[in-house]
């Protein structure tokens, strides 16, 4: 046997009593063992023993959902490490940011990783949604998983927004002031909602305490739960979406016809589209090694990118929060700048109607667009109307965000970023 040394060591270890008790199956050599490896491992059993060829096509999924998941994992790990230092107190929070930078070993890199991974996660959630839309993947039977995805999008925004306040610098303070003001424009409940978020009328210690609790407990727990259900349903709905294939007859059991007074095994109730009852076994390939190894490689890649960003670019930190010196202009976090730009035209439309309609339309999308065609292909010709509407909305959102980010100066006036901004001084 001329296998490399690590492999031989692994083989030896998994044949010992201890190794076998932990891993059950060693490095698999037969198809039986490849299936066993997937089924017997806690981390791997979430995925099927065999997947459809289509699911491995990088050009189809672009790995966007998985990248988002990895970013979430990185955020959890770095976040817990940051919690060892952070104190949610208006007196201490900012000083702790400085200590992380200057005296904590790897403290700055840790904070940078958390910050950049958070921005990337918001970005990749959005990209993942675009992918799912453009491939029509939200259609039956995956309607509700899309709704869960919309919910996860909102939870991600909530996580990022609550985390934004924690450094307690000018950037944090005024972004949260602006962001919560946008919420305050909602009719009837707006002011109450803002008061509930901040624990008062202005951003202060109570707001910091609330945002901290939301950021480290409530929203992460919610995210973990929803991500679990999201992944569970991906599996139960037959893996990644793919085009219907000729000959793949869905053998749907009509549960209503079955006698109800006997118990059924899992296989009897399994839905027709699950891979194990797929009609074309030659399209199925073993998850080990083809899926698992690709996933591991992607994790390495995501880690490398986040590390690279964190080592060479520092997370922003401005002066300590100062309630009497607002920066001009005070800007919300980038993903809300499109809304802030809209708010500058009309608080009611930008702050309430447009975001409300957008979220509602996104959540109801799979129930309004019910025709089952064009699933599993990018920019399917049959879906040209839906794709056009979505693209126009997306383009508007991007343009508004770019304007809000780069073309708005003091008093939200129009500036051209390639020209030097006029010196801002406080008037008497």
């Amino acid at each position, binding site marked *: 046997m001329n296998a490399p040394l690590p492999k031989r060591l692994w083989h030896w270890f998994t044949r010992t009593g201890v190794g076998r008790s932990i891993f059950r199956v060693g490095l698999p050599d037969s198809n039986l063992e490849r299936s066993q490896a997937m089924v017997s491992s806690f981390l791997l059993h979430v995925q099927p023993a065999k997947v459809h060829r289509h699911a491995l096509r990088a050009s189809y999924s672009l790995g966007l959902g998985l990248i988002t998941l990895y970013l979430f994992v990185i955020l959890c790990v770095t976040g817990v490490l940051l919690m060892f230092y952070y104190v949610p107190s208006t007196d201490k929070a900012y000083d702790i940011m400085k200590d992380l930078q200057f005296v904590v070993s790897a403290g700055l890199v840790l904070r940078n990783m958390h910050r950049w991974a958070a921005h990337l996660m918001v970005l990749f959630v959005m990209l993942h949604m675009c992918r799912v839309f453009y491939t029509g993947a939200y259609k039956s039977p995956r309607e509700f998983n899309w709704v869960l995805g919309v919910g996860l999008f909102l939870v991600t925004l909530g996580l990022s927004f609550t985390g934004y306040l924690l450094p307690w610098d000018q950037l944090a303070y005024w972004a949260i002031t602006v962001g919560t003001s946008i919420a305050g424009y909602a009719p009837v409940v707006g002011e109450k909602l803002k008061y509930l978020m901040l624990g008062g009328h202005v951003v202060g210690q109570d707001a910091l305490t609330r945002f901290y609790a939301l950021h480290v407990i409530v929203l992460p727990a919610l995210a973990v739960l929803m991500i679990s259900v999201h992944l569970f349903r991906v599996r139960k709905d037959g893996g990644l979406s793919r085009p219907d294939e000729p000959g793949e007859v869905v053998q749907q059991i009509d549960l209503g016809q079955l006698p109800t007074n006997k118990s059924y095994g899992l296989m009897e109730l399994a839905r027709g589209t699950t891979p194990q009852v797929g009609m074309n076994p030659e399209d199925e390939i073993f998850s080990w090694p083809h899926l698992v190894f690709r996933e591991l*490689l992607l994790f390495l890649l995501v880690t490398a990118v986040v590390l690279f960003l964190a080592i060479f670019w520092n997370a922003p930190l401005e002066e300590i929060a100062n309630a009497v010196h607002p920066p001009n202009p005070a800007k919300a976090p980038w993903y809300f700048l499109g809304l802030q730009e809209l708010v500058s035209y009309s608080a009611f439309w930008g702050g309430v109607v447009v975001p409300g309609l957008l979220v509602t339309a996104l959540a109801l999308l799979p129930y309004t667009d019910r025709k089952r065609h064009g699933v599993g292909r990018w920019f399917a010709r049959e879906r040209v109307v839906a794709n056009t509407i979505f693209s126009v909305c997306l383009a508007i959102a991007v343009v508004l965000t770019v304007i809000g980010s780069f073309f708005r100066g003091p008093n939200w006036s129009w500036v051209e970023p390639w020209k030097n901004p006029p010196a801002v001084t406080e008037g*008497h």
Partner: protein
Amino acid sequence: MQDFSIRKFYGWFTALGLLVGVLVIVGYYRDEYRAWKDYQRRYIQEEIHRAATPQQRLLAERIPVEIRQTVLPDLHRVDRCTTCHLTVEDPSYGGYPQPLSYHPLHEQHPFERFGCTICHRGQGRATTTVEAHGNVAYWDEPMLPMQYIQASCGQCHEPADNPAAPELAQGEQVFENSGCRGCHKLGGSGGIIGPELDKVGARRSPDWLKKHFIDPASATPGSVMPPQKFPDTNLEAIVLFMLSQTGESASGYYSSMKNLPNTRLGQHLFQSRGCIGCHSVNGNGGKVGPALDDVGLRRAPEWMMQHFRDPQSVTPGSVMPRFGFTETEARALTDFLIHMREQAVALMLPSLMSPAERGREVFRKYGCAGCHGPGAKGGVPNPNSKTAEQVPGLLHVADGYTVPQLKARINTGQHEIPALDPKRPPPPLYMPGWAGTIKDAEVDDLAAYLISLKPKDENPGF
């Protein structure tokens, strides 16, 4: 037949694994390498070099390379300056190049109680040169240039009569005499036309302040403040005084040190403790104790100090009670009495002054000169006002106002100044109402002063 070989992944795993590994190493190196460690090693080398005995050498070699800091909870500071500036307390390093230099004259402000940044400013928590010296974005307090270092004394101590900070005292004089208070509030008293100055020193740089005094509108577009024509020394002094106004408030140990003994504190104590009830100055006051006009010539300072502690110990049979003055208060009173013979100080006792003299002090104290000119002679421009585009002088108010009218005018002010040309912007300067700011008794004195300004040799009945 499917390809089950995992060999094709080897290349990818190797490449990405190496990439992550290299990044971790780069990140570790950047995190681990800090310039302050070099400075500390240089210091240790120097100590080893100096060691005369093996024991000393062993001690020097055992000096740890580590962050050093002074934690100052009452000052809301952690100063890590001594991480690089290791030898600030070691006189044998006098004349060494920075960062290994000695800091002279720190006996009265020991580092373990005061740290560094309370006087020098900068960013105490930082451990890199650029960040610590504070000339970076998003840090409001860069290190104070040494020429303005006296400004830091003024954060805690009264500027006047602080012998260690003459330029600060000069700056305060310039501030009070130039009428800045007419428009600006400082320490709770002053006008409302301009912004409050209580924390101006923490927000503004020396260069900005200078520019602002020379041409206010260039530093703050739209400012109505008239340009100030200070001579250079006065300009530097008032910039320094402005820099001292940081709003820094220290509690506990630090507040008890706030008052340096000085004649102003002495004068305050002299009035408030009722000394004048028994002693006289300029013939005014009680006759129970001796007159104090020339006490500074008759008695040594040490005698006076002992006298304040326990009058009977130096003057047996004296009926003067023991007032329980603190050492600081006793020194301040002594200081005051030594200078008593100087007429100017004696005249500053309000109870010994005439109403018009007190009124002149009120005129000075509230900065009336800022608009009405030094000595109320006018001449400050107020573009587009009907009164010759100037703020009117007040030398002739006695002709147009009775005393009650004048007092009413001071109290209510005049917010709408008649414009010369209605098409041009209205005159920027106006008369604020001073009721509630200037006390009633002071308004009486001020009115008396203004009435007294009328030139004596003019023919009133023309």
